[in-house]
């Protein structure tokens, strides 16, 4: 059997964003993977220290599109800690609603791409059509389909009235049976099971060793979800089940995302049922931000997003560092791809739901 080196990327039909994989194969079996990153490195960590605290709410939202709500949220949470700002209860619920709306859209996108990669094109189009309802929700509630501009320091920039609550409930009622149906298909369809069961396995011990997070970790049995372990926004008042599976394969990662999409619908409903009244921001004035440092974490669709912010006496941060969930998850690909078949490479890479814009910043 011959040995070959296959280049995958940086521009490749199966990659949403550029990343270069140098894959050594023996016959059709992957022996070693070398990842070369940096193709969309934009220096945002440098740029953020050149803008003031409030401009950075806008900048952080543009680090990534699928988890664009999580970045300004975690950043705002860190600034609020430094300034001792208490976010009003209504804003905490509205933050959770925005978080979960983005989660449904993000998870369905990834699961839809999986159907595309296994050649189940009608399923791909169906999932994307179902996801389109979430895009419509975002456009209706926030005025934009990707960067929803929900967060500000001290609260949120949007509110929902009885009419928009009714609209949201109506859309969720229509969405749930569709999501249930997709879960059933991914649970039983032979063409999906054949290409995803036992493929790209990451064991529990390997998941712990790599420090992976989010659905990638939970699919390997790691019971960790920031919303439960380090609650923020309104999550300490919501029932948040944490879904885990044990097999750590491509199928498990897809199923975790589908179950979390279903749970997200329930969480939005919980928020609507108990949405408190009151203001949506702590103060209408721009608050003074004193020197200090803080860490904030939230559960982005791909897992734990952590922000470190340090302020001095300047309105510009001295340092802002964030670690996106994709960052540690890349390393685990080396394990998942080991001994995989060449035809499964794209499916396995997609299964970590990689975000390259997030990773490279």
């Amino acid at each position, binding site marked *: 059997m011959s040995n070959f080196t296959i280049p995958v990327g940086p521009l490749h039909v199966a990659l949403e964003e550029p990343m270069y994989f140098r894959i050594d194969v023996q016959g059709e079996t992957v022996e070693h993977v070398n990842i070369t990153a940096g193709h969309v490195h934009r220096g945002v960590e440098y740029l953020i220290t050149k803008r003031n605290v409030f401009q950075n709410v806008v900048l952080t939202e543009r680090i990534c599109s699928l988890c664009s709500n999580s970045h300004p949220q975690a950043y705002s949470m860190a600034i609020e800690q430094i300034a001792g700002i208490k976010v009003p209860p209504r804003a905490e619920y509205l933050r959770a609603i925005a978080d979960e709306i983005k989660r449904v859209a993000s998870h369905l996108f990834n699961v839809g791409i999986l159907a595309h990669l296994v050649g189940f094109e009608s399923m791909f189009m169906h999932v994307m059509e179902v996801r389109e309802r979430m895009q419509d929700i975002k456009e209706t509630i926030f005025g934009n389909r990707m960067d929803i501009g929900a967060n500000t320091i001290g609260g949120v920039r949007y509110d929902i009235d009885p009419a928009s609550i009714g609209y949201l409930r109506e859309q969720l009622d229509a969405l749930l049976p569709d999501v249930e149906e997709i879960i059933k298909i991914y649970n039983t369809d032979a063409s999906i099971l054949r290409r995803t069961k036992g493929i790209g396995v990451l064991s529990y011990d390997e998941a712990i060793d790599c420090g992976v997070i989010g659905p990638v970790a939970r699919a390997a049995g790691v019971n960790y979800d920031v919303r439960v372990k380090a609650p923020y926004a309104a999550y300490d008042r919501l029932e948040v089940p944490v879904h885990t599976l044990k097999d750590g394969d491509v199928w498990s990662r897809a199923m975790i995302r589908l179950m979390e999409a279903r749970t997200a619908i329930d969480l939005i409903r919980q928020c609507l049922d108990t949405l408190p009244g009151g203001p949506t921001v702590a103060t209408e004035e721009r608050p003074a931000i004193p020197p200090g440092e*803080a860490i904030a974490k939230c559960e982005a669709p791909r897992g734990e997003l*952590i922000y470190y912010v340090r302020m001095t006496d300047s309105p510009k941060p001295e340092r802002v560092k964030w670690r996106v969930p994709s960052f540690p998850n890349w*390393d685990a690909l080396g394990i998942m791809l080991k001994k995989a078949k060449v035809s499964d490479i794209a499916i396995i890479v997609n299964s970590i739901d990689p975000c390259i814009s997030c990773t490279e910043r």
Partner: protein
Amino acid sequence: MSILPAHIETQLAEAAPAGVQFRTVTDDKGVVTAWCTLSSADNLLSVGLLLKRIGARLSTITVYQPKAVAVPKPKEGEEPAPLPTFPGGTPQDGKTYEIDYHFDIDGDTLTVVAHVAAGGSIDSLTPLYRAADWPERELMELYALVVRDHPNPKRLFIDESIEPAVFERLIPYSTLVNSAASKSIWEKIMAQTGAPS
């Protein structure tokens, strides 16, 4: 309520014989953020080992150069006041590196802080924590800080052709966007390959 192990401060002090400064902050929801500043960066590995035994996960590593603290000018005939220092005596001269290792302990965050003077180096945590590999490679391309015994110290994001320590120098915007314009890229390609026949 904190899930940090009982007596964590004592355990950290035992692992770092040069000394530690320890503090915690608990938010309204009971989430604890702890900070452990090492007096000597040489104690990093033993602290990392302790946290590994506890079951901590390395979330990420932050590096920066804290600004120098302004020292008032001495009056005539007086000796200049000494520079303030970080715990352990590293000068706050604007060039010292502060390296923050953010560990997750089942939801709570413990940040181990080490200071390294300009031109210095620090041990790699990658042999202990696989998740330290990429962050340490990234910090080595952003700053002129050497990570000792890193198993794979090659560049992570920034190409080898670019000078190192990009966070330690001003990069003019015109240089930054030099390759962003298609005309500029085309001219570069033409200069290297010659015009099409």
